């Protein structure tokens, strides 16, 4: 099969259209550059009335929104999931890592939780504080101007609270708490856990005239038809297409590798067009990888050449290493005081929580080094698959019979509707060299590209953190008047920790650093081994923080992209 070459030479080829790739596309196009965006999945626009899933009713799905095909349900807007037919990955030594992929314009930003937290000053220098992991080669002050710009361009609601490691930004005003969140505030405070308005990227107030204002359907996971939440397609790629630069969108195109010249500099990428299954080449002065931490590592490791025999950017053998995901554990309670609710009003609110608890503890006095934040869920949500399962199981708390049939089930469903409160801890794990992805030499995907093989184990620190989560959840849930459900998970259940990868915060696989022997990129996310290749997804993260990674991906991608523009102007690339 012949490889088909395009004669166009782009200023930049951006691989991936999620948070990192989307931001790079926006910044580069705004600077007037000619940009090719290569996205592995199809075009997606939630404003298309036929393509959108927002405001659909459960009966529009024959499975009523069950997660049989899309793990977060039929109406979730992320195409893909932890398993994609024809695109396997493997594991080493019996360890586990679940890899979530969403191949589509905007990638995983179409369904993410929109929890938009800045990393704090300590998060960039955590080794200096506790001796674990490594410090970043940059500090909060380096990133702050870009966080500020992201806040103003994309929009995030929140409140100024002056918490040292949870820096304030340029916030839109938050929505008022819902009923179950008022219960949480009560229970958390009684437990000594502080609560604040959450920080999320939905527009509670107009931010410009191109995007609408939130209309409170609670369905951000379905992507917003008026662009009132942040998705990379709607808020970055589409505006980039209207900028003074040129943006050519290549959808359904899977990048196989970065191509290089005799000096080892990148010349572009080769990709497979999924529609005709043929291989193509694109030429560019700069290659910007934003395919996701693991996909980017895979592309680099698959880009083997005489100049880069161990894969591109991998002379250090660090590509793929230090992979880490946020920790996650959850617990819920039945709250008798939330029974018999009036259904007289719509409490959908924004998608997700209106209040949250950032990490409050002092790790120097605890047996684990890093913290976690608490997310809150509950309320009278739209029924979907699973509604009414074990409808009156809470009868057990009142000593009445469980089960039955007939009209009593109707009154039970209404009696208990909205009487559940759940808490999720999302925490920081330590980045270890021994948690990694690598190329599996024995397996290819349906495009003929060698796949990733994962090796990942939680350490004792994550286990201890999870125990602390469950202890705290039990206290808070009890203090808000709840009957805690289930029992505290023990060693056999990994103390309740989700399998690595399940929180979908994969970071660290191309970490940044000043030393080319121990890092893949420099502090501008530029490969030490090839100066015209940049990584703008979460690969360059040295550590994860007890925050979600998206806001930092956006800020760092903006920073790296400005550097690219500057270096192109100076003809250094």
């Amino acid at each position: 099969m012949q490889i088909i070459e395009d004669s166009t030479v782009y200023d930049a080829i951006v691989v991936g259209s999620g948070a990192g790739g989307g931001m790079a596309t926006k910044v580069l196009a705004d600077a007037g550059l000619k940009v090719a965006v290569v996205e592995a999945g199809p075009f997606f626009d939630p404003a298309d009335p036929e393509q959108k899933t927002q405001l659909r009713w459960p009966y529009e799905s024959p499975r009523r929104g069950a997660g049989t095909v899309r793990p977060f349900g039929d109406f979730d807007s992320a195409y893909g999931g932890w398993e994609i037919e024809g695109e396997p990955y493997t594991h080493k030594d019996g360890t586990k890592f679940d890899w979530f992929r969403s191949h589509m314009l905007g990638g995983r930003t179409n369904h993410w939780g929109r929890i938009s937290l800045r990393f704090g000053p300590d998060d960039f220098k955590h080794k200096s504080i506790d001796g674990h992991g490594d410090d970043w080669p940059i500090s909060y002050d380096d990133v702050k101007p870009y966080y500020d710009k992201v806040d103003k361009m994309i929009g995030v609601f929140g409140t100024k609270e002056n918490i040292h490691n949870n820096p304030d930004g340029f916030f839109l005003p938050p929505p008022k708490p819902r009923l179950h969140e008022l219960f949480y505030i009560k229970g958390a405070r009684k437990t000594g856990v502080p609560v604040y308005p959450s920080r999320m990227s939905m527009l509670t107030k107009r931010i410009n005239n191109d995007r609408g204002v939130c209309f409170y359907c609670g369905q951000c996971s379905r992507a917003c038809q008026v662009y009132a939440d942040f998705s990379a397609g709607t808020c970055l790629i589409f505006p980039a297409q209207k900028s003074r630069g040129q943006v050519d969108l290549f959808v359904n195109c899977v990048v196989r590798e970065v191509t290089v010249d005799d000096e080892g500099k990148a010349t572009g990428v080769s990709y497979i067009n999924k529609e005709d299954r043929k291989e193509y080449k694109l030429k560019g002065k700069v290659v910007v990888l934003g395919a996701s931490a693991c996909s980017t590592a895979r592309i680099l490791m698959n880009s083997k050449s005489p100049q880069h025999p161990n894969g591109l950017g991998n002379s250090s053998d660090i590509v793929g290493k230090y992979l880490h995901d946020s920790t996650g554990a959850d617990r819920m309670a039945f709250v008798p005081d939330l029974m018999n609710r009036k259904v007289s009003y719509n409490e959908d609110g924004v998608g997700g929580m209106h209040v949250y608890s950032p990490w409050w503890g002092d790790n120097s006095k605890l047996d684990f080094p890093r913290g976690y934040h608490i997310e809150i869920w509950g309320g009278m949500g739209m029924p979907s698959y699973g509604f009414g399962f074990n409808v009156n199981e809470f009868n057990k708390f009142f000593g009445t019979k469980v089960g039955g049939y007939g009209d009593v089930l109707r009154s039970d469903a209404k009696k208990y509707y909205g009487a559940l409160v759940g808490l999720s801890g999302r925490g920081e794990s330590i980045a270890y060299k021994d948690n990694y992805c690598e190329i599996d030499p024995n397996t290819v995907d349906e495009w003929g590209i060698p796949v990733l093989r994962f090796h990942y184990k939680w350490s004792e620190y994550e286990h201890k953190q999870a125990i602390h989560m469950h202890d705290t959840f039990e206290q808070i849930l009890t203090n808000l008047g709840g009957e805690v459900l289930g029992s505290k998970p023990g060693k056999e259940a990994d103390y309740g920790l989700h399998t690595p990868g399940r929180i979908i915060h994969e970071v660290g696989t191309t970490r940044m650093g000043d030393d080319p022997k121990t890092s893949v990129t420099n502090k501008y996310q530029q490969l030490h081994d090839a100066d015209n290749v940049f990584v703008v997804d979460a690969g360059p993260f040295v550590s994860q923080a007890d925050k979600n990674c998206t806001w930092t991906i956006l800020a760092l991608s903006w920073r790296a992209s400005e550097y690219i523009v500057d270096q192109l102007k100076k003809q250094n690339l």
Partner: protein
Amino acid sequence: MDRRKSLKSIVLGSVAGGLAINGCKPGAETPVEEVALDPTAVKWRTDRENEHVAELERERFFNDHEAATMTVLCDLILPGGAEFKSASDAEVVPFIEFMAKDLPQMQVDLRGGLMWLDHKSNTEFGTEFKSATEEQQKSILDGIAYYDPDVPSSERPFEVNFFSLVRNHTMTGFYTSKIGIEELGYKGNMPNVWDGVPQDVLDQHGVSYEPEWLAKCVDQSKRNIVAEWDEDGNLIS
């Protein structure tokens, strides 16, 4: 049974079937019948997802007798009457039919459970379940409809778990339907402006808003004014 594996085999099967048909086309004397794509194919699913749904719709799980028995059973779980609509008004059995194909691990339990019901009814009343009197049917249900939540489901009798499976899916099928959502009274899934919990609801549950907290929240009368900040990040519009 591993659901994922079974799902994969179904999808692979459908692809293989399609290839086989196409493969026959060139030399075929008799026209090959096109497999029609499900007319419900929608743009909000991917092509592959639509094909999968169409494939499931083409299969049939319940036979006529089973479907009729399920209808009787589901209407005992959620009966119709002066005040409420029934499970069959909400087409719960076609929903369960789909789910049985979507989640094939349910199939043996459903089919076996229906056989159990007929066996029980025949043994006790000399007639199959669907033809028994309502009183007879209820006397069977009274023996399987309740469970001890402190006993793990894996240790409960089969027929009790069978009934729970049908009850759960009847409830979901009904309350995710248009008439079920109306009965429940859910008010969401439409554009609105969230401005806090109504006072009567706060009073009913014994909670209140703190003035300091509310002062930080959005003033909905100004939500359409473009945001501007001073240099310290204070909102000034």
